[in-house]
C-alpha cells in the first residue's frame, strides 16, 4: 500500500519491542465478539492511483461543470476567476499539511496570514476587528445572532425576508433548540428590499436584526436607516454579505452602522466546489471582542523582542472554557481563509473596486438583454451583480428546460422558497467577470426558446 511505510519486517521487529505476539494482541481491550476477523465483506480492496483516478474522473464527468456552459447561478455562491497562483500557493505543503497554529514558534506562516486575513476582512466589512474564520456564511450568521443575545441579553432576532432562505433555515433550526425567538418576515416579489417591514418589527425585546446586503433577490437594503432604528431600541444590526466582491463597489456595512458583519467568503479564492468547503467571515465592533466566537490571532513579541503572532483570547473557546465557551467551533476554514487572503492581496483595494465594476457592468448587460425577452420583466430597482427577473411562468421548470439546452440559467425562487408560491415566477440571475457577451446572448436566446 503506497501510503503505509511499515514493512513486514518492521512490524515484526516492533511487535518484538512491544512484547506482543501479534498485532491483534494490541486490540485486546476490544471485546472479542466486536472484533472483525478480516476486511469487511462486500467492500472492494485497495486500488492503484490509476484505477482510483479513473473511477473519480468518471464521476466528475457526469456533472455539467460551470466552465463548460453559459453560467448565471449565484444565490450565495459565485463563480469568479481565481488567479492560478492562489491554488498553487495554498498547495504549499507548509500551509496545506499544517495543523491549527497552537505552537506559534513554528507556525508563524499560518499565524501571520491569519493576522493579515483578519485585517483584510475588517477593512472590507468596515468593522473594527474580525476573527480567523467560521465554517461558512450560514453558520457565521447563526453565531452572530447568538453573540448578539450575549451582548444585549435579549433573545428575539428579526430576520429580513431578504436573508438567504438557507441561512434563515439554519437560524430557525438552531433556535428551536436554544429557545431564541426568531421573527421571520415574509418575502415579496417587489422592487425594493423590506427595510420598512424590518424597522417595523423591531421592539424593545429585539436583540438583533439580520439583514442581507445585497439581499437574496439582489436588492440593496438601506442599512443606515435600519441601524438607526435598531440602535434606538437597543438592538444590534447584523449585516450578512454573501457576495464580498460587492463591497468593492457598495459601502461597507460597518461604515453604515452595522454592529456585526458576517459573510460568505467563497467568492474570493475558494471556488464553487458544490457548496463546500466555504469560508465564514465574521467581523464586529472591538468592544464585543470577548463575546466573539472562533479563533483570533493577535500580535505580540517573542523572547528576543521580535514581532510575532499567536492565537489569543482563547478563554472564549471550547478547549479552555468547555460548556461555557462562546461557541463549540474548533476546526474552522483555515485554508479557505488563506485562499481568500491571497486572492484579495493579488487584487488590492483598487483592484477589488475594478473587479466589482466589471461585475456590475456584466450584470447590467445581462439584465438589459433579458428585459428584451418577451414576457420577462426586471424586478430590481438596484442591484450589484445579481438581480431577479420575473417570468411568465414557474421559473423552476424554466431552469430545468434551460439546463437541457446546456445553459445554467440562474436559480428559481421556487427552489429557494418552495413554500411561497407568490415568488415562483422569480428567477435569480447573476453575472460575474467570467461571463462573456456570447454567454449572455446564448442565455437570452435559449430563454426565448424555452418561454416561446
Amino acid at each position, binding site marked *: *500500500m503506497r*501510503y503505509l*511505510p*511499515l514493512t513486514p519486517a518492521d512490524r515484526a521487529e516492533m511487535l518484538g519491542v512491544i512484547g*506482543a505476539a501479534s498485532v491483534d494482541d494490541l486490540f*485486546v*481491550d*476490544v471485546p472479542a465478539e*466486536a472484533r472483525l476477523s*478480516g*476486511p*469487511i465483506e462486500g467492500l472492494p480492496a485497495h*486500488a492503484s492511483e490509476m484505477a*482510483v*483516478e479513473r473511477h*473519480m*474522473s468518471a464521476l*466528475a464527468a*457526469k456533472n455539467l461543470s460551470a*466552465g463548460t456552459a453559459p453560467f448565471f*447561478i449565484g444565490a450565495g455562491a459565485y*463563480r469568479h476567476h481565481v488567479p492560478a*497562483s492562489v491554488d498553487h500557493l495554498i498547495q504549499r505543503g*507548509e*500551509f496545506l499539511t499544517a495543523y491549527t497554529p497552537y505552537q506559534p*514558534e*513554528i507556525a*508563524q506562516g499560518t499565524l501571520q*496570514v491569519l493576522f493579515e486575513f483578519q485585517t483584510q476582512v475588517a477593512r*472590507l466589512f468596515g468593522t473594527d*476587528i*474580525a476573527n480567523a474564520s467560521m465554517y461558512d*456564511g450560514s*453558520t457565521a450568521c447563526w453565531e452572530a445572532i447568538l453573540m448578539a443575545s450575549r451582548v444585549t441579553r435579549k433573545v428575539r432576532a428579526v430576520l429580513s425576508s431578504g436573508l438567504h432562505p438557507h441561512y434563515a433555515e*439554519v437560524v430557525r*433550526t438552531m433556535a428551536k433548540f436554544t429557545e431564541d425567538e426568531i421573527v421571520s418576515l415574509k418575502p415579496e416579489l417587489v422592487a425594493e428590499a423590506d427595510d420598512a417591514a424590518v424597522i417595523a418589527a423591531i421592539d424593545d425585546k429585539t436583540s438583533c436584526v439580520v439583514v442581507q446586503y445585497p439581499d437574496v433577490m439582489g436588492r440593496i437594503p438601506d442599512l443606515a436607516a435600519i441601524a438607526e432604528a435598531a440602535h434606538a431600541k437597543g438592538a444590534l444590526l447584523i449585516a450578512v454579505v454573501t457576495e464580498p466582491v460587492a463591497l468593492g463597489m457598495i459601502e461597507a456595512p460597518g461604515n453604515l452602522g452595522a454592529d456585526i458583519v458576517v459573510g460568505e467568503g467563497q467568492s474570493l479564492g475558494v471556488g464553487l*466546489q*458544490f*457548496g463546500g*468547503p*466555504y469560508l465564514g467571515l465574521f467581523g464586529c465592533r472591538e468592544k464585543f*471582542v470577548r463575546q466573539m466566537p472562533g479563533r483570533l490571532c493577535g500580535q*505580540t*513579541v517573542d523572547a*528576543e523582542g*521580535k514581532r510575532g503572532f499567536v492565537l489569543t483570547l482563547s478563554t472564549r473557546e*471550547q*478547549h479552555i472554557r468547555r*460548556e461555557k*465557551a462562546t*461557541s*463549540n467551533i*474548533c476546526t474552522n*476554514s483555515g485554508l479557505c481563509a488563506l485562499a481568500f487572503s491571497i486572492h484579495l*492581496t493579488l*487584487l*488590492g483595494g483598487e*483592484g477589488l473596486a*475594478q473587479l466589482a465594476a466589471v461585475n*456590475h457592468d456584466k450584470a447590467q448587460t445581462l439584465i438589459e438583454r433579458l428585459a428584451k425577452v418577451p414576457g420577462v420583466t426586471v424586478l430590481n430597482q438596484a442591484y450589484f451583480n445579481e438581480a431577479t427577473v420575473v417570468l411568465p411562468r414557474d421559473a423552476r421548470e424554466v431552469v430545468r428546460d434551460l439546463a437541457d439546452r446546456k445553459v445554467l440559467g440562474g436559480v428559481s425562487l421556487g427552489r429557494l422558497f418552495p413554500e411561497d408560491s407568490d415568488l415562483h415566477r422569480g428567477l435569480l440571475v447573476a453575472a460575474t467577470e467570467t461571463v462573456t457577451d456570447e454567454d449572455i446572448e446564448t442565455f437570452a436566446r435559449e430563454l426565448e426558446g424555452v418561454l416561446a
Partner: protein
Amino acid sequence: MNAVNASGWRPQMGEAGEGGAFKTASGDYGLMLEEALSFELGSSAKCGVDLDTLARPAAAGLSKFLRKAAPALPGLTEPEAVRHYTRLSRQNYAIDLGPFPLGSCTMKHNPRLNEKMARLPGFADVHPLQPQKTVEGALEVIEQLADWLITLTGMASVAMSPKAGAHGELCGLLCIRAALDARGEKRDVVLVPESAHGTNPATAAFAGFKVQSIPATPEGRVDVEALKAKLGPNVAGVMITNPNTCGLFEPEMKAIGDAVHAAGGYVYCDGANFNAIVGKVRPGDLGVDAMHINLHKTFSTPHGGGGPGAGPVVLSEALAPFAPLPFVSRGDDGRIHLVEEENRGEGHDQAFGRMVAFHGQMGMFTRALTYILSHGADGLRQVAEDAVLNANYVLRSCEDLLPAPFAKSGPCMHEALFSDAGLAEGFSTLDIAKGLIDEGFHPMTVYFPLVVKGAMLVEPTETESKAGLDRFIASLRSLAQRAKDGDQSLHSAPHFAPRRRLDETLAARKPVLVWQGTPGEPGTPALSEFGGS
C-alpha cells in the same frame, strides 16, 4: 529527513542570533527569511490581476449605495505575492516536513491524488444550486462515501452536511433532541466524561443541554458505575469518546450503551479517534446511536492550518429519520435522491431542519472517497493496525523515562499518553514540547486530556516509517533525560525556530487583532520596532 547534524548551520545561526555575535544587514540568515506584512509591502493601487478596464459607470439605481473610497487593502503583483506567501510558508512546520504527532488530531500524510481529484472541474467548478440532473456525479460521490461510512461503522444512516467534528457533534445531539421531542419527552442533561475534548461539553451547551461530568477511573476509562448512577429520566444521553482521549479503548462500551438505552437515553460517540479501529471494529456493534467522523483525521483530508474539515455523522435506526437536510439517499427506484426543503415530504419529513447553506464539505468528500478507494477494505484495516502498532512502539520505547500513567493496564490504541511526573523541579511538559521543536519535530498534544497532569499525548499515525519513529523516540528520550537532569537550556527552547517563545500574556492583555495604517506605509507599531527585516 531530520538527519542529525550537530555541527550544521542551524546551531551556529542560533548562537549568532542569541549573542549577537553575527548580525546580517538584511535581518535574514541564509534560508531563514523574515517577512513583513502584506500591508507593509503592498499599496492599494497595486494589482496582481489584469482586469477589464471597459466598465461603464454604476447604474443609476446603485449610485446612492456606492462606497466612498476603495477599501484600504494592499495589493501585490504576482511575483511579489508568490514570494510573500512562499516566504511565510517556510515559517511553518508541516506533515510534509516531518512527524506531527499531535494526539487526537491524526496528522497523517495527505495523499496528493486526493488534491488532484478534488480539483477536477466536474467537482471543483460545480455550483451547489445547479439543477439536479447536471450534478448527478457529485451526488454519487456523496452517496458512495455515505455508503462506505455506513458500512465501515455498521450504522443505519449518515448525515453528510456537518462541516467539522464539532458541527457533527451538534448534528448528533440535535438528532437526539428531535428524537426525544418526537417521543414527547423533555430530557435536558447530557453526561460527558472529564477526559472529553472541549468541543463535547461546548456542543452540549450549544444544543441547549446541561452538562454533567463523569469521572475517569484510575485506569483511564469512563467510570461506568458513576455513569450508571447518574442515569435517569432527565438524561438525554451520554457523549463517549471511543477510543478515548487517553488513547484507550472503552471495553465497557456495550454495557454503557445498554444501560443508557434502558434508561431511555441515547449514546453519542465522539469518533475523532476512529483511525485506531477503522476496519477492525464497527461502532454500530457497540450500541452507538450517533458518531461523527472527522474526514480530516481518519480519512486524510488536509488540516490546512486549522481547517476546513468535514464531520459526517453516522446514525442508528432510532435517530436516522431526524437527520438534517439536505439529505442524499438512494431510493427504492435505484436512483439517488437529494432531499431538500422543496421535497422533504419524499421520505424524510422528520428531518430536524438544516445546519448549513448547501450540501456540506464536497471538496472533502471527494478527497475522502479517493482515500478510501485507494486503501480499500483491506488497506483501511491495515491503517488501524499500523497506527496502533506505531503508538505502542513509542509507548514501550519511552515508558522507562517518561511515566505512562495507563501503560500498565495494557496496550494503547493509536496514541501514547505520558505525563511530566518525575522531571526535575521546575520542569514540565512545556519544556519537552518546546525542546522537540529544536529537535526538528512538531510537539505532541500537551496538557490534554485534562485527567492527566502535564499530559503529553503522542499520536504518530500509520504514515510514519519505523526509521522516522526511531529518530523521534531518540529525541524524546534525550529531552526526557535532559528534563530529569535539570538542563536549564530547555526553559528557553526553542532556540532554532523562526521565533523564540512568544508572549501570550501580552497578546491577550492588549489585543492587537488587526493592523493599523495605510498600506505601503509603515504601520503602528512599525516593523522595525520589533527588530524584523
